[in-house]
């Protein structure tokens, strides 16, 4: 019993870790390859989660839809809507320079949050959406379902990884790194800098939407207070910096490592005296904040640093 309990605890960590790995790959497209600072990760994550929930739940009068479509449609719709949201944002903000884009992205996350909380016809407001289906929910129940879901999440991680890796080694990715490292010379070489940035932002946002959809189907319930947006955004940043920004393998490794540390500290703080237990999550946040400072000062290039692909000499 003890062993199976532990095993399924591990499964739940790996599912959440996989979802974070996808977010981290998405941020790696935007920041690692494109040099675009996005502090609004949680906003696009939420857009994806709500889209997939609305597309796949049964008809309800409490929120828009549900359209009762199969889950793959939900995932695709999540990527599409998050991508379009990203496009609208990028259309306005992508010309902003680094620090300004960072400031604007905080505002974007805030506006997306306001829409989700206030537009009850769309999202059922603060009451949230329940009854979100799990894939193969009719066939497998209980703990078996978690294993099936684990496989599905990591299949998505693999697909996203292959996609990001193709992007990275392609001429498109090379141009992107050129823009990131020296915008002026890329522009002088005739590259349409704003257009490349727009594409980067949209691709990253679409992948964040996919991660959001996967988390909605995992928890089967969504509400504005279910996740703390700032914490999600922040954890993804720590993961990417620790793993190695610019490297897709590093992004996945960082996500797993930091998520394991985060989950392990939950076990440790669970052993604290009772009067401290309610505060344990703040201690963990404090530790992750300090961990980021440590990584920034000592291991800036991360666990698996970026390595540019060799140029072919033809």
């Amino acid at each position, binding site marked *: 019993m003890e062993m199976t309990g532990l095993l399924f605890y591990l499964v739940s960590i790996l599912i959440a870790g996989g979802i974070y790995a996808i977010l981290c790959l998405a941020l790696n497209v935007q920041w690692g390859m494109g040099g675009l*600072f996005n*502090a609004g990760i949680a906003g696009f994550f939420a857009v994806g989660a709500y889209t997939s929930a609305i597309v796949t739940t049964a008809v309800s009068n409490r929120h828009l839809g549900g359209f009762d479509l199969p889950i793959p449609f939900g995932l695709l719709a999540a990527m599409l809507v998050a991508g379009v949201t990203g496009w609208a944002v990028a259309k*306005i*903000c992508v*010309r*902003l*320079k*680094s*620090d*300004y884009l*960072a*400031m*604007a992205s*905080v*505002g*974007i996350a*805030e*506006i997306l949050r*306001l829409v989700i*909380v*206030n537009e009850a016809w769309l999202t059922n407001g603060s009451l949230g959406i329940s009854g979100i289906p799990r894939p193969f929910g009719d066939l497998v129940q209980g703990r078996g379902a978690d294993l099936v879901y684990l496989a599905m999440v990591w299949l998505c991680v693999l697909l996203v990884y292959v996609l990001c890796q193709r992007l990275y080694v392609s001429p498109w990715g090379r141009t992107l790194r050129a823009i990131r490292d020296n915008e002026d010379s890329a522009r002088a070489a005739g590259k349409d800098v704003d257009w490349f940035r727009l594409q980067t932002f949209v691709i990253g946002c679409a992948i964040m939407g996919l991660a959001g959809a996967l988390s909605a189907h995992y928890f089967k319930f969504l509400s504005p207070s279910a996740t703390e947006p*700032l*914490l999600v955004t*922040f954890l993804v*940043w*720590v993961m990417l*910096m620790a793993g190695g920004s610019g490297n897709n393998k590093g992004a996945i490794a960082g996500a797993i490592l930091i998520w394991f540390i985060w989950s392990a500290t939950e076990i440790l703080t669970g052993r604290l005296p009772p009067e401290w237990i309610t*505060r344990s999550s*703040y*201690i963990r*946040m*404090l530790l*992750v*904040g*300090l961990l*980021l*400072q440590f990584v*920034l*000062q000592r291991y*800036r290039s991360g666990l698996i640093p970026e390595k540019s692909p060799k140029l072919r000499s033809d």
Partner: protein
Amino acid sequence: MIDFINLYLVPGLTIGSVYALGAVGISMIFGILRFAHFAHGDLMTIGGYGVLTAVWFIPIHPLLLLPFGMALAIVAALAVDRFFYRPLRQLPTIYTVIASFGVALIFRSLAQLFWSSGNQVFVPGVRPPVVLFDTFRISALHAQVIILTLIIAVALHFFLTRSKLGRAMRAVSDEPELASVAGLDTERVVRWTWVIGAALAAAAGVFAGMDTSMHPNLGWNLLLAMFAAAVLGGIGKPMGAIAGGLIIGIAEETVTYTWFGGEPLISPSYKSAVAFFIMVALLLFRPQGLFKGRLL
């Protein structure tokens, strides 16, 4: 019209004062250290809790205890600058932005750890508004906040234009290379930037916390509007930041006024989006702000 002044303009000026005091620090840090300080809102929170704690021990009017909050915020700011920002100073500034994002989380979790995550009020009870000429109903707190902000703004103006240190700050902000060639001690200027920025942030945090209540997210929720105020006033222009803060505060409150017919112009639940749109529009069309601030 009277309703407009009582319910929209004065609250707008009050929240605008909070933004103004916060934005001064953001603008000065941006001007001198060249990065967007994401932890500034949470620095306000720390200052607010400093005064809250002082009130527990010395039960007098919280505004008289402002120095305690300022001292706490100054110590916090100098410590994070020394340990977390200074080691990154030679790198591209975006790394410092990321570090300050982390510091925001550190400040917030410390606030939650030491002062709990709930809402806390400085002085319990409802205070009746002051009635002037039978028409203007203004809460005493709003009047105090606006007057104190004006006093701070005037003092800051004289400090920046008359004192040697203030002039050195403006010099480093305008032309860092020239200033260091001319023999100005840049690190000293940086230290005093943090001291002034943190002290004003603490005042803003206390004002905001007294207007509603203290909670750990207080400062972070105000950050966007303060960035907008700093951009509006022109980066590196403290006086511009004060004007920017007041404008953003008034804009946020007055867009919910029933200008045309019976409906508010913008639903009050979306008023924090106003700052964002002002900021983005400015960055695209007039990035130097109203007062010719520096460009990145």
